[in-house]
């Protein structure tokens, strides 16, 4: 989960204005290399086939989509210089930069964009991320530098899924079979791509080295060499920062107290677009919104932020990232109040019984709390929440297990907590990014068909609310951004009222950035573009 969250931070590496993607040549001043660390060896750099979050870091140097999201949460031109959407929201037209080229010098044209559609929808290729492509009915090239995406229905998230996605070099991939593509033929040698850098060397499990792309059509880059070192242990990464070997690197929460031992670095503190939550599986008592509200009142979010997260988080009241375009700061929230929680449950018909636990209709109110055994902070959170829930009479034993057990199906005799048909609470992190669409989380069509369905859908809490369904449909089909914001304001209000889950906090992250690195800006939405960076 955290890996995925990390990807969201990395995904925005290429942000900010590529205005007027002209024909400026790549001028490279002599400079020391930029060195950063990643925790795993990228498994696959073949477009859309990678399974790991760390894949996003090398691809962010190598790739450029039609457009990209800036660190200011706005869209900027990439391969396309301009774009438009038809009034009915069904046709998206992109005008391509006539100077755009692949790293081998071949012109990048609309034929590549059309080929990308064929690639992303080819069932023989082991695509992992294909979100949004199912809405694309056809892609039409209108000349070499203009392309039109025709959709089956209006789809507002088009820019963040398809529009900003990778483009595939037709002249390279066309000559390979799906089997060759699946088995990593693209990763051998120097992969042809369209971003500001090319992968010049990849020593497996050790480092990836990038050099400027000689055919890059965007603003010139200033750093001659980028080295991405594979360092799996976060303490080792911190020690590398301490010896000045890294230009930048994240500070593990365990090492926050050691931050003053780092010299020559500026510490950048940003809010991460990842929140921590308690998923309430609505199978019995948890179907009752009053019970969910009571548990929300009985959850000490501020204490968790202060004592367990050591201030490296802010209390969450919804799933839209604070500071983002779709965030509504006026949504009311519940502060920790055990008395209020107990009162709600009493009004709902619960009475104290055997062992001091609450009962209704002879049934004990039991909500076991599950979390990942490997996550130290989440285990602590589970313990703290359990203590407070038990103070109001809710029996809440804590269980820890591997994530694959927590989210998995288990066996028919011993099904996993998500699919066992009982009230359960699960604590984990979730990052849908800065984009507002939360359909898969709370829409009733993503509820598993039955408690023991082999493959749980994303709405595993089984939250069903027709108003939510209707608002989410509007949210993904309205093309006007202000109109969408109004819809998401209503969604956040509905989340607060009906509690599909308990939002705990948004993570904050500390990144050490060398004082020699200029032009590097980091926000919740990403980083300044790599061509703005320079090292002295």
């Amino acid at each position: 989960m955290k890996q995925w969250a990390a990807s969201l931070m990395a995904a925005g590496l290429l942000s900010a204005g590529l205005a007027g993607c002209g024909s400026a040549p790549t001028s490279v001043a002599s400079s020391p290399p930029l060195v950063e660390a990643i925790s795993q060896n990228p498994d696959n750099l073949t477009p859309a086939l990678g399974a790991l979050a760390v894949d996003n870091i090398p691809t962010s140097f190598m790739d450029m989509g039609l457009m990209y999201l800036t660190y200011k949460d706005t869209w900027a031109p990439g391969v396309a210089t301009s774009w438009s959407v038809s009034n009915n929201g069904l046709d998206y037209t992109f005008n391509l930069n006539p100077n755009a080229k692949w790293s081998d010098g071949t012109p990048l044209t609309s034929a590549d964009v059309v080929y990308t559609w064929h690639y992303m929808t080819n069932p023989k290729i082991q695509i992992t991320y294909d979100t949004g492509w199912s809405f694309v009915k056809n892609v039409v090239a209108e000349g070499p530098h203009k392309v039109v995406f025709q959709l089956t229905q209006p789809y507002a998230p088009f820019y963040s899924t398809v529009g900003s996605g990778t483009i595939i070099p037709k002249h390279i991939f066309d000559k390979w079979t799906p089997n060759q593509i699946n088995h990593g033929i693209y990763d051998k040698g120097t992969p042809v791509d369209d971003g500001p850098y090319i992968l010049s060397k990849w020593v497996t499990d050790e480092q990836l080295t990038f050099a400027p792309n000689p055919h890059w059509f965007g603003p010139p880059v200033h750093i001659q060499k980028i080295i991405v070192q594979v360092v799996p242990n976060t303490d080792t990464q911190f020690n590398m920062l301490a010896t000045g070997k890294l230009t930048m690197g994240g500070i593990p929460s365990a090492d926050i107290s050691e931050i003053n031992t780092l010299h020559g670095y500026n510490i950048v503190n940003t809010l991460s677009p990842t929140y921590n939550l308690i998923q309430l599986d609505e199978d019995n008592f948890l179907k009752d919104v009053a019970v969910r509200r009571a548990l929300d009142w009985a959850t000490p979010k501020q204490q968790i932020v202060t004592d367990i997260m050591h201030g490296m988080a802010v209390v969450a009241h919804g799933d839209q990232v604070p500071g983002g375009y779709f965030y509504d700061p006026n949504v009311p929230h519940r502060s920790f109040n055990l008395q209020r929680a107990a009162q709600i449950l009493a009004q709902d018909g619960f009475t104290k019984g055997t062992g001091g636990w609450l009962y209704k209709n002879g049934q004990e109110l039991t909500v076991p709390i599950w979390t990942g055994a490997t996550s130290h902070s989440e285990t602590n959170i589970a313990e703290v929440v359990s203590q407070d829930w038990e103070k109001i009479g809710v029996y809440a034993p804590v269980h820890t297990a591997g994530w694959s057990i927590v989210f998995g199906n288990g066996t028919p005799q011993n099904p996993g907590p998500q699919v066992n048909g009982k009230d359960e609470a699960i604590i984990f992190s979730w990052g849908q990014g800065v984009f507002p669409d939360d359909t898969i989380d709370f829409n009733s069509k993503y509820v598993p068909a039955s408690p023991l369905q082999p493959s749980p859908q994303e709405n595993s809490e089984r939250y069903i609310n027709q108003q939510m369904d209707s608002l989410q449909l509007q949210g993904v089909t309205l093309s006007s951004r202000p109109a969408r914001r109004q819809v998401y304001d209503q969604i956040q209000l509905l989340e607060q009222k009906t509690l599909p889950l308990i939002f705990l906090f948004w993570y904050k992250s500390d990144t050490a950035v060398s004082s020699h690195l200029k032009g590097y800006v980091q926000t919740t939405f990403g980083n300044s573009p790599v061509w703005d960076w320079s090292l002295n």
Partner: protein
Amino acid sequence: MTKYALQRVIEAIPLLFLVTLVTYFIMNLAPGGPLSMYLHNPHVTQSQIAVLAKQLGLNEPWYIRYFKWLWALLHGNWGYSYFSGQPVIQLIGQRLPNTLILMGSAFLVSLGLGIPLGIYSATHQYSTFDYTFSFLSFFAWAMPSFFFGLLLQMIFAVKLGWLPVAGMYSEFYPPSFLELLRHLVLPTMVLGLGSLAGWSRFMRSGILEVIRQDYIRTAKAKGLKQRTIILKHALKNALLPIVTIIGMDLPGFFGGAVITEEIFAWPGMGRLFLSALNDRDYPVQMAALLISAALLILGNLLADLAYGLLDPRIQYN
């Protein structure tokens, strides 16, 4: 001896098959599966997971997949990683030499220091050196390698700046033998320390036991030099039990490399195995387990062969 060695190798083949069958079965008993990492990823839809399961053959029963894997292995095909799509043999080929370098250096250091230190400790029983070395051996033996690794990094890399924190070569200079040696020092110490401590203790006990034997007393009575008595007469006999331990410890170096490689960012098999375990990448897991099992068998075989060299009474027929 050659005939004996061949016979042992042939006997090991069905054992290895059995190991693969059992490990494949146990792997498939573990909750989750190769695609469980996608279950809570909002970018990967359920239908896409179903397509991937079919493409990777994960919708078939485990025993069918096992026999397909085995059949391919018998034809020299180790399969493909579920995640990178690359041939497993290629993934291993990239990393196995690095692990062998690390294992080999740790083995040599353990052997090269452990045996002489054990002998010296035994011949200077109850001396200050003996007490100090005994204390340090137990301390090192008890030290968890992940903690020891970070401690060494902190002292020698961060505070003193003498050695690099991690990696196999410097990111700033072209690869060279000297750079490799500099990067090898800390992981070798971590990987080899436990064995060094253990082997030296066994060596000390072995020598102490042997030097009380009658033939040693006779050698002393004949006026032989202490050095000659120890190296020529006592050492060979004292080594016999150690050889067994060393043989058994060989796969331990492979297993220990998992943690050492993780801490020191050493690009070897240990990290490949660990990530394969986390990702439930069955073909890669199977290859790593097969290599580990083969090392165990090889270690035992080498130990048995070494007996014959050390003790002429042992016959292989």
